[in-house]
């Protein structure tokens, strides 16, 4: 099975070790992974800011880079949701119709339906049931909204149906990992793209409230399908010197967190105590 590795722009630039972990995971489970070198961004930043027309270039690049693959997999529920819903979704509503029609014209086939968030792909397509990896820490799972309510990776707390959670299931396969209980299981962290800046006060308050919940639960690590939520939370953690760290779920599932991060060490290189 040939998988096109979709690396969201901010992961490419700021969290390359998350992309490496994703690549390693997919290869470990037998995927023939291709990284299309000229990919840029899915177009979500422009679209969510109300300027979906300005995302046309990103949409064109994405479809050119990825339309040849059986599966397209990326470590972000939010970017994948944009591709599925806003870039290549059904053109039924008038304000987005033209954009989607243009994307489909380039794609030829339905790129959206073949694009998966990593955990969704591991569970729904690869159907993996063991990981052979350990991470002996107390972990808080931040349910990122777009994966949760957009891709339905887990049951949202509003919905009255049998609970399920693909991400928690995967983390449950990690030896020694203990998930902490949260008072609010799936409240938004307040990142929201440009919202983080345009509505700074509410965004920061939402982030602080999420962190307090994880800390009350005794989390040593907060993990999520989306590094963007974690970037926002980490910004607060570092500023307020809180005793908790963020890790993308791919890093935990792939194991060897420290070694991978060390290869990309930046200014704040040392992860005191280390995570193994």
């Amino acid at each position: 099975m040939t998988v096109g590795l979709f690396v969201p722009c901010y992961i490419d630039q700021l969290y390359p070790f998350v992309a490496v972990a994703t690549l390693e995971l997919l290869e470990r489970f037998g995927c023939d992974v291709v990284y299309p070198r000229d990919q840029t961004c899915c177009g979500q930043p422009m679209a969510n800011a109300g300027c979906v027309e300005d995302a046309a270039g990103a949409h064109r690049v994405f479809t050119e880079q990825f339309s040849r693959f059986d599966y397209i997999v990326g470590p972000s529920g939010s970017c994948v949701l944009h591709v599925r819903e806003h870039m290549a979704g059904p053109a039924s509503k008038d304000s987005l119709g033209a954009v989607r029609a243009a994307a489909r014209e380039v794609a030829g086939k339905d790129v959206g339906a073949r694009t998966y968030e990593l955990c969704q792909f591991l569970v729904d397509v690869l159907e993996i049931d063991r990981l052979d990896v350990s991470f002996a820490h107390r972990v808080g799972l931040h349910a990122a909204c777009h994966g949760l309510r957009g891709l339905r990776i887990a049951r949202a707390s509003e919905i009255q149906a049998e609970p399920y959670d693909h991400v928690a299931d995967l983390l449950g396969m990690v030896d020694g990992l203990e998930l902490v209980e949260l008072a609010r299981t799936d409240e938004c962290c307040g990142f929201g793209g440009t919202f983080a800046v345009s509505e700074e006060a509410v965004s920061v308050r939402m982030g602080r409230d999420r962190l307090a919940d994880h800390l009350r639960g005794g989390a040593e690590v907060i993990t999520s399908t989306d590094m963007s939520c974690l970037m926002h939370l980490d910004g607060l953690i570092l500023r307020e010197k809180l005793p908790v760290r963020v890790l993308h779920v791919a890093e935990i599932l792939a194991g060897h967190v420290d070694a991978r991060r060390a290869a990309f060490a930046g200014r704040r290189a040392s992860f005191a105590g280390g995570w193994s």
Partner: protein
Amino acid sequence: MSRAFVELPVVDHAANAARFNADAERTGWHDAALWHVRRKRDQAASAVPEWEALRELASQIKEHTLSRLDEYLVAFEERAAANGVHVHWAADAAEHNRIVHGILELRGVRRMVKSKSMLTEECGLNPYLEARGIEIVDTDLGERIVQLAGEAPSHIVMPAIHVKKEEIGALFHERMGTEAGSTDPQYLTEAARQDLRARFLEADAAVTGVNFAVAETGGFVVVTNEGNADLGAHLAPVHVACMGIEKLIPKAEHLGVFLRLLARSATGQPLSIYTSHFHRPAPGRELHVVLVDNGRSDQLDRADFRASLKCIRCGACMNTCPVYRRSGGHSYGSTIPGPIGSILTPGFDLEKYAALPFASTLCGSCSDVCPVKIDIHQQLFAWRQVAAREGAVSRSKRRMMRLVGRVFGRPAWYRGAGRLARGLLRSLPRRLLYSRGNVWGRSRELPEAPRHSFGDWFDEHRGNR
């Protein structure tokens, strides 16, 4: 949302929210109060095994009704008229206010009681009638509190949810002579009840809202927890019920769907305390229904946004919204605040309310909690597109997006821009990096920039493709 209301400047939700958040303790209190209601809703909904099927059914009934709204409205008018109800049509808020005033003036009404009606708030009925010498008393406890405080409701189901009991005690002491310093909810409620009782008895007319109007019977349903709509309507010789045209449902049997959803979604109650069905005036009395458009037909005409008219005004989207809970209803500057208000109000005045669709993280909780399955977060997204296209988004933001969009359309530019940004993040002194323009950095650290991107790593370790 009002057209007739005093014109306010452009709503700056972010600035209003920042003011709200300046009091961190109060923000936490407000958030917790509304989250508690959301939890009660979860418990009530989970007790109904067919909850999701009910939501779907309610959504479909509303979709159907909206697709034939004209026919159902005419059918409703015919049945209601046959029952002896006076039916009036108002194209906008101004006409609504004129009609209600006309009814009251003809009967020489000086004093009027009103049960909760967001429509009359939307139309600015209170100031309109007060300016014409008619005394209006809001009889819903929450609405009475905000009326006495000279404020607008901050929530459509719990209008005074932003007011603390200490503040209510002080307000009642000043306005109703309750004991100074008293904060006991039971004592304060009883004081309001006694005060209102006298006003019910002396009222010449009662205005109520409408929760559901039934096309097949010409009747309508008003839901309250306090019985104030009933007391007003049964004591006064004239009852005027004001409703938006989207309140219609085809059949009485459909009430069985909506009533099961409404109170559970709103407050977590299986049913509101009073569910009152009105069909015809009592002998010697008058019953009027005012059907109000006020922009609803325009919204019906917008393919992206017509589903917003399915709303049954339960307020669940407000209770669940992490932004509403931490910014307060008044920050939206509209009669209907929160997620549903943010997709309704831009249709009234895009320039004024253009900030509201951006007052959201698009987390989608509103859509999942909505009992009639309005795709609220999708409509927020769609309104953003409309706002930018119509020039209601700042020029600097649009220029920035155009630039960023161009970069993302050219892989080489993207790689170059990424390298530059990482270089700056790594090399700029902290003083420059965290200068005033860096809004992110006011309370948060910027991410650490690695020396190499993933693309660089891939080229080095895996060869070029």
